[in-house]
């Protein structure tokens, strides 16, 4: 048993860089694999509904007729089950986490019709 056993660590900490980041000024760099949120490339989506069936929390709704893909951001548990099962690989996990919010947010993605696009041009 010794007294002041911790002094060495204390002195070391005094002369080393802080272990923490200065958060708002210095943004965190996420590693490549971080599962933060689900991203969709809506143009390659074929609306098969596989992600909706495989989602364990039922956060995803796919409407084949309306060509919409809806996700309830606060129900999503970032398990990456939809991205793994997507046959067209149009779903992938993005790095950043959803922003905190006072109410539950729902994101709706709509596929633009090719004919409508042509007409607009």
């Amino acid at each position: 048993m010794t007294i002041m056993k911790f002094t060495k660590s204390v002195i070391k900490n005094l002369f080393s860089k802080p272990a923490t980041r200065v958060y708002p000024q210095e943004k965190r760099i996420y590693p490549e694999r971080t599962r933060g949120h689900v991203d969709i490339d809506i143009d390659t989506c074929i609306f098969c509904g596989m992600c909706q069936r495989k989602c364990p929390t039922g956060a995803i709704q796919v409407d084949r007729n309306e060509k919409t893909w809806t996700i309830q951001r606060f129900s999503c548990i970032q398990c990456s089950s939809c991205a793994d099962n997507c046959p067209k690989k149009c779903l992938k996990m993005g790095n950043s986490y959803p922003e905190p919010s006072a109410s539950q947010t729902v994101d709706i993605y709509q596929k633009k019709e090719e004919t409508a696009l042509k007409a607009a041009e």
Partner: protein
Amino acid sequence: MSKRSIVPFGPQHPVLPEPIHLDLVLEDEKVVQAVPSIGFVHRGLEKLVEKKDYQEYVYVAERICGICSFMHGMGYCEAVERIMNIEIPDRAKFLRVIWAEMSRIHSHLLWLGLTADAFGFESLFMESWKMREKILDMFEYSTGGRVIFSVNKIGGQRKDMDDDMIKMFVKLFGEMESDLRELTNTFLQDYSVNTRLRDVGFLTKEQAHDLGAVGPMMRASGISLDTRKMGYAAYPEIKFEPVTSNVGDSYARVDVRIKEIFQSIDIIRQAAKKIPAGTVDVPVKGMPDGEFMMRVEQPRGEAVYYVKANGTKFLDRVRVRTPTFANLPALLETLKGCQLADVPILILTIDPCISCTER
């Protein structure tokens, strides 16, 4: 005999953020008896098998606890794989060992920090958690999650670690080892820490056996049992011996857990050397039919998974016996005869995880 009084402890208490309540029967300052009360936040996760099919339930199993989430997922998957007679690839088995041992190190560091906090050594608490943070970063780097890893699935693993990543982890653990040595020496040798830990909360070998203590709590009382020795994942190919101590007081429990941290680093090194190349999952066909009782060694001790399937995609029953639940009767025994001021630290020495208990 002096007058007896009853002092309530918890469910809200500064040393323990989780809800457990104890009625302490005191004679002056001495605890004569303690009666526990749990169930403040019972979540009924076992009942969820009726709503989620057997593959989706992995996500539920992982969420039983935030510290040993990997091991809960693994325990459930191993049980179902044995019912369905699935042999997972060797690489997946070794990946399970590496991630499980990383979980053990981070859990023990978390616990060391909380113990330091319980006896008022704030800077030691910060130091432990600083070290733990590095392991959480490794987890995020390899699995994509810091708390819930979602890498287990029935039939293998969902993610692979490439060889560079494993080499990097082994190197990082090598660098951490000297820092860890310094940190743990403070726990084992510092005067003020020793006065709080030594000679309190004795649990004899017989008591530990009869009261069904598990994990480091049991091994600190001299019983050399470790469920990893029963052989799941790739543990049969790894050389290790259960860490034990014959003293049985709070200090012995700290000692055992600290030695287990270094043992886990050694297991990761062995696994990194032996890990074979290949795929990490096999396709799963059919539905489970039958029952199985799986015993898994978690950081806090042995967890028992009982899975009963009926040939459909919904299971009949999943039952999880968590280590803290098994350690509660032993805790009550250690509390008998201790001073009221020692109660918080004695509760912490079983490494309580009430979120596991209230699954």
